[in-house]
């Protein structure tokens, strides 16, 4: 029961990793999902093309917050280049549960924000699931 609310997801939601402010980040991006009001900001420190530190802020549902928290753990120490290929599958793998199209949007918001922070732009349409 409540598979959407698996223990690990609830844990990330209740005890988010890397959440908080960052002084003088090299990269910042903020966005929100207008349909549900979820918002996420990612802040990065980058040295030699590698993510040295990451922080995020946000408010939203369990799925989006857990996704942001889990992604923040993944990204630390990665070359920016690596983020380029992260997609829907990456997020689903992290969350470990199947998601309906609407909830998928919640899950993908942090990825979108993280990628724009890293790359400055994104391929349009990437984060929507209905294409």
């Amino acid at each position, binding site marked *: *029961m*409540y598979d*959407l*609310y698996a223990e690990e997801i*609830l844990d990330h939601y209740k005890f988010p990793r890397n959440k908080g402010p960052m002084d003088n980040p090299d990269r910042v991006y903020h966005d929100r999902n207008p*349909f*549900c*009001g*979820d918002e996420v900001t990612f802040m990065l420190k980058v040295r030699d093309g590698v993510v040295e530190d990451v922080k995020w802020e946000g*408010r*939203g*549902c*369990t*799925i989006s917050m857990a996704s942001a928290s889990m992604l923040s753990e993944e990204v630390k120490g990665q070359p920016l280049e690596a983020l380029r290929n992260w997609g829907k599958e990456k997020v689903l793998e992290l969350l470990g549960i199947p998601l309906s199209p609407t*909830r998928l949007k*919640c899950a993908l918001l942090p990825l979108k924000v993280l990628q724009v922070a890293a790359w400055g732009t994104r391929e349009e349409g990437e984060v929507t699931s209905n294409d």
Partner: protein
Amino acid sequence: MKLAESVSLDPYRLREDFPIFSQKMHGKPLVYLDNTASAQKPRTVIEAMDTMYREVYANVHRGIYELSERATQMYEDARRKVAHFIHARSRREIVFVRNTTEAINLVAYTWGLANLRPGDEVLITEMEHHSNIVPWQLICQRTGATLRWVPITEDGHLNMEALDSLLGEHTRIFAFTAMSNVLGTINPVAELVRRAHAVGALALVDGAQSVPHLPTDVQAWDADFVAFSSHKMLGPTGIGVLYAKRHLLEGMPPFMGGGEMIREVTMTHATWNEVPYKFEAGTPAFVEAVGLGAAVDYLSGLGMDRVHELEQALVDYAYERLHTVEGLRIIGPGPKERGGVLSFTLDDVHPHDVAAILDQEGIAVRAGHHCAQPIHDRYDLVATTRASFYIYNTREDVDRLTAALHRVAHLFRG
């Protein structure tokens, strides 16, 4: 007669008219509490359209053969039923559109573009649905008119003193909802129309929530325009209504151009058909209109007073039961002053999570800003969870909702 009217409606009996309730949702009977977004359909509505497609289908107007004549008759009968249902003076005051949104846009694009000038003011309220906000923002941008907002009080009523100071000689139209789709607030429509008229402004009523749930008398309101949607009042999607006083419709330029709305077309000009056809360009959603007619028949059969009474009793009960859930806060007025809409927060659990967990219990509620961001901003909320009722909802539905909310609270607190 008197006696029959005093007998209350029985939701358990009414449910049987709605095929959707014969299925299970996640193994449990469906508890459908998203009626503000859209209502379920009784068998008679579904069958009216089905039958039309199977037996009487042909394009309406101008057909000189039996199928077309009969289809036209059915389409115009539906218009008459709607006119009667809201106490319009004539079926010519009923323009069929897609939904409430199109009805309001139609007024903004026609009356608005033709009449608004820089210096003019359009007045709306903080409790409007986006459909009664964005068309006015767009039209004010285009015409240079100014958009003004009536604030609301902490307990979810229009601030009537502020209203008085906002309504003035520059106000050209006051557009407001008869019932809030978030707070449930039932506004004093006739009084608001009176105040608008007192300063020479027109009054547009967004009836999307009130027409399905309360008796409507556009003449008693003296409203100039009333907009509502079929799909929220047991009717099909794809059809809605703009009511407007006939002389206003006659004075307005057309909206869309095309077949049926014209009188004559030459290479240099076109002249317009009589109202309401001037505003119905192209092949209308006539099968849907017939479906709406069947919905109106169904509701009239119940009596709108009794519909309201049933919902009122349910809101009373729900209001009390939901307050047993720790951390649950309902926004808007008290139970006696609202329709069957309850929007709430539960500690800081995100409404998406609430809705997703309720879904797994077979309970359908809505989570989000309900197309009304300004009212959420007003209460400094991003989103709420909303449970809303209609004639087929029972106390058992409320009990299941309450029990499920207790479990949500526990899951996030534990």
